[in-house]
């Protein structure tokens, strides 16, 4: 049984918890990388490249949860 989504379903609630950050990571990482090449928006502390680093963090979190709770596992 997939946890949280009902008896007989394949996708666990934790799969969705991973999926959304994974998709956001896939959007933010390339955009953040492009920004880091001199296209940063003029926000405070933009020189720390927050979009890129935060995107990487979301990507790692998302990959871990989607793989760990992928459909059919367990």
């Amino acid at each position, binding site marked *: 049984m997939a946890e949280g989504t009902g008896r007989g379903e394949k996708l666990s609630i934790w799969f969705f918890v991973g999926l959304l950050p994974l998709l956001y990571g896939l959007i933010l990482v390339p955009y953040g990388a492009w920004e880091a090449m001199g296209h*940063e928006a003029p926000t405070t502390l933009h020189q720390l490249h927050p979009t890129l680093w935060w995107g990487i963090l979301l990507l790692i979190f998302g990959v871990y949860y989607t793989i760990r709770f992928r459909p059919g596992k367990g």
Partner: protein
Amino acid sequence: MPHIFAPLLLFFASRQLTVLSPIDIAVLALYFVVVIFIGFYVKGSTNTSEEFFLAGREMSAWIAGLSFVSANLGSLELMGWAGAAYQYGILAAHWYWIGAIPAMLFLGIVMMPFYYISKTHSVPGYLQLRFGEGARSVSAVSFALMTVLMSGVNMYSMALVMKVVLGWNISFSIWIGAVTVAIYVMLGGLRSAIINEVLQFVLIWAGAALIPILGLIEAGGWSNLKAQIAANLGSNDYTHLWSTLGHFKDNPMGVHWTGIVFGLGFVISFGYWTTDFLVVQRVLSANNLRAAKMAPIIGAAFKMAVPLIVIVPGLLALTVLKNPDGSIMHLVGEDVAAATGQHSYNEVLPLMLIRYCGPGLLGLGITALVAGFMSGMAGNVSAFSTVWTYDLYGAYMKKNAPDSHYVSMGRWSTIVGMLLSVGTAYLVANAASIMDYVQALFSFFIAPLFGTVVLGMLWKRATSAGGFWGLLAGTVSSIAMWIWVQRDAGALQYIALSPDAKPMAENLYRALWSFVICVVITFVVSMLTKPTPVAQLAGLVYGATEIPDDGADALWQRPIFWAIIVIVVFFILNLIFW
């Protein structure tokens, strides 16, 4: 006609804080696609009333716990308390710590066994089992009304934030939120609402945690932040939790420690976290007794971390927010902001978001806020549909109908509740003061309801008549005190017991008195009426119920073990920020 609205549009146009780039819109759109998909995905698992209204009672402690804490983590609260932290300093953290943690632990350890083993579907349902129809009808009618109104307030607040931050049309935001929430709650019931709340919890952190991280880097760390606040405001009071509460005059909030400990920490907090069906419903979805006891404890552990993304940004704003000329920006109340065009306290979180987050991250932050608002609507509407179907329709209009009839009624009442919420949202849009009244209304019922429920659970001698009259007297006295202060501001000194008390103290002491009145009336009437036979109280009251074993063997499996760890961390945090 357009020229009539031109000044208004100009006003909002000048107030618009930022615009979304295509990447932000993609982030936001992705969220809507995923939540609608979840609604359709879980529809197949919501065929019975138990599945639709209580998510099949199959949620693990982690899911129920995250949903439990997330149901209270709406955007209205986040933005409001970030603004309160700017206005009153770290004292606002009391609403997250002493105003939540002890009550959540009490729910898990003491009260949850009774809610859970009574197999009630709702808090009014428990009152019916314990005190009979009178107490249930008072509680169910007031709760149904409040949830619809609160859902409307959430809806309007989201529309207003989207208007102020992004310049979006109010009606567009109201309808897009209403239709999305109606679809996923109607299809998946509580299960949809819970899944989205867990997602929202992750999103809130993903969207908001960067603000305190970057803010503390900019401020040079916590110690430097405290020093800068003290230098800017000429006072150390903004960064102390307890040391300024010796007298009403010594702190920015104008409250006394007795109000915080007894009014907030005991009555308001225990009332909200243990009897508000909106949050209790999440725990009732747990798959066994131990999960039901653990869920509020897990929720409490996460709740302790929330001030990082709410209170810290408010404190940071006191030093890092600057005007274009480099001077410190001073935020003001809503009334002054409307008159002068300055930014208001409630805009702290969006202002900080815009300060640090460029395209992509801004979309993530806005998505987190939208998710918080929609989750607030979904929570209220799913609780409304449960109480309406079980405690009003099923109890008084159509008893003993087939289960599928009640599921169908649950789906229809979700749509009707949503439409009523839309009506409330437009009502609030035309008379903003209604929002204050709705929030005040909510406070009328919570404190006395806690008195009734806790006496019902812990005192065998409490009778049906005692429960009903205590609840009614407590609620009426709360309304009377509120009207008294509305008509005569000087009355506050009698309710808060000090001429130096400020409006914030009124809520705390009004709750305390209405609770005391409820308890006294329940006690007196119970002693004057015939006791309920103990045999009828089995499964409902402490002392008349054998609590079943929750199946914990090892120490680390026991809810009490984790509750002790959470309470120790709670004390340490309070000492650190004393």
